[in-house]
């Protein structure tokens, strides 16, 4: 098991290096002058002149060959130094430290809401297969997962902020301000998890060992929670893992609509201003989140399912 974890951690670092390298060169091949973008974003169009451009290039050492910039940057990253943001003129790590918790708070609130709704609904839907509650669950999850999140966000703002005036439209001030973005973000996740849990439970409920559990005279609760749910959970963990990765990546649209100061908004902003150290910082955090969550998912999987442990943990 320890060997397996070490192997996976090494893979995480390789993934991070590949993602960072790809991002670095992708940003460099995109059209537009970095110095020009920095001046426009900080001082406005009028400040652009050959002199200011030259100053900015000198300040951020942009004249070096691209490959040298890459090796210098990579050397710094290895030592934990992510560089200084061109736009904010502050260390990238300091800005991430402020923005990341906001994204995590929003993401995990949405994640919690989705679990609270999807687990009971998924189970109920499977246990009442082809009955009204199952039809309702399938229809509503299909409907909700089909709506684009920006449309749901606007609908919720119109109802709860403009008409009823019970929740703030945007920003991050107090507990109430997280409700609308978290609910919006959770809707898609809830729909996917409910449908996955339903189909996974249906599959498990048809297995021989469930009939055997009933034949033992066990109570329904023991059959459902002790046998069926336990076997239905592993595929759900994969989906949940991907969703957590998505959360860490920052729900870009939701953060922008609700002006939530998280990683997603920061990344979009940095791309617009060609703020390379900031882009790299955001991408590294997102990639690290995905990789770590996937690692945790794989380890959890092998802890829950002994068959995976015995096949070497590669499944």
């Amino acid at each position, binding site marked *: 098991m320890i060997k397996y974890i070490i192997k996976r951690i090494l893979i995480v670092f390789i993934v991070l290096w590949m993602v960072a390298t790809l991002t670095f060169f992708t940003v460099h091949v995109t059209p537009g002058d970095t110095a020009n973008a920095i001046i426009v974003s900080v001082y406005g169009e009028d400040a652009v002149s050959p002199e200011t451009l030259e100053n900015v290039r000198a300040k951020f050492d942009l004249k070096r060959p691209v490959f040298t910039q890459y090796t210098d940057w990579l050397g710094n990253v290895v030592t934990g130094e992510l560089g200084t943001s061109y736009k904010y003129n502050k260390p990238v790590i300091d800005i991430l430290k402020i923005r990341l918790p906001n994204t995590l708070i929003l993401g995990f609130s949405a994640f919690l809401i989705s679990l609270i709704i999807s687990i009971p609904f998924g189970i109920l839907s499977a246990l009442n297969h082809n009955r009204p509650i199952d039809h309702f669950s399938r229809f509503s999850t299909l409907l909700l997962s089909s709506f684009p999140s920006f449309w749901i966000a606007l609908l919720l703002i119109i109802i709860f902020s403009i008409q009823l005036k019970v929740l703030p439209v945007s920003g991050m001030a107090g507990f109430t301000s997280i409700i609308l973005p978290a609910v919006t973000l959770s809707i898609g996740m809830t729909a996917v998890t409910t449908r996955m849990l339903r189909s996974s439970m249906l599959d498990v409920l048809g*297995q*021989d*060992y469930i*009939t*055997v*559990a*009933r*034949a*033992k*005279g*066990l*109570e329904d609760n*023991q059959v459902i929670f*002790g*046998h069926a749910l*336990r*076997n239905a959970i592993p595929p759900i963990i994969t989906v949940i893992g991907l969703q957590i990765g998505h959360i860490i990546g920052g729900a870009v649209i939701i953060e922008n609509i609700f002006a939530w100061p998280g990683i997603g908004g920061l990344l979009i902003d940095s791309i617009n201003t060609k703020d390379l150290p900031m882009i790299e910082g955001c991408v590294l955090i997102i990639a690290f989140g995905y990789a770590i969550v996937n690692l945790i998912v794989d380890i959890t999987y092998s802890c*829950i*399912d*002994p*068959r995976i442990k*015995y096949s070497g943990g590669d499944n």
Partner: protein
Amino acid sequence: MSVLLEIKDLNVSFTVDDKQVHILNNVSLEINKNEVLAVIGETGCGKSVTGSAILHLLPDNAIVTGDILFKGKDITKMNEQEFRQLRGQAIASVPQSPSTSLNPLMHVGNQVAECVLENNSSEDDKKKTVAKVHEIFASLGLPRGEDFYQNYPCELSGGMCQRVLIAMGVITHPELLIVDEPTKAVDWALRKDVVDVFCELKNEMKCAMLFITHDIAAAKYVADRIAVMYCGEVVEIGPTDSVINQPLHPYTKGLIASMPSKGFKVMNGFMPSFQDLPKGCRFSDRCECTSDICINNEPEIVEIAEGHFAKCSIYKNLNVSELFKHAATS
């Protein structure tokens, strides 16, 4: 001997695509206390459906009529809550397919222990149950000790899984054990071991068994009486020696003749589909002695010798001496 389980005119249909498919047709059986009744027949003839009907484990689309009396009480009239007191306790089962019948994510020891433990069992009860599980494992030739208790099914061989399933069936000391195809998923070498285990159980535990199998040799070895099923009907039932050595129904004769030790003569044709059954005798299109009566009329079950019944029109109009003569010459 007193009757433990009595099945009277059991009919089971399944609703498929708004149509009713009639599977079990007036199945009537009796199992006495401490008696092993083997139910034999081809795959798909309704043996396991009979077992599942007794255990109330048929799917929701099943329609069950007829009576199943356990110690005189009709269990078909019991609600799920009442029947749960019997299921797994007085009436237990050993399922088929050891590879799929054990929960893959649960220690095998716990799977056996939960047959006895209640939700609110005390720590003391739990300890006693664990000790009992170890004892049963040892008595079934499985390793004793915590290591084996904490194995997952994927860590065991097919034969070991089969024995764990047997342990699950017998830990509650049931009065009736429904054993469903215990030799189906085990190889030739293990088959004898498994049959031996049931013989030991029969002698030591003194519980009655409904031994569902397509393995005639195993049935011969374990059972006191044999019921032969074909296409959802009991076509012959009688003492083991009598059924094996003097089969009456043409289907039983065909089955016996197809045994490797009896010449390996394969029967003609296949069992008809339950959705397209012959009008008269269900075996008529494969039978070598078919007549017009067989094609047009459903035969009645007739007692040919003491306790030996056959459902065949050949025997309907014969007097007693002719019956014996026919049975002896055939």
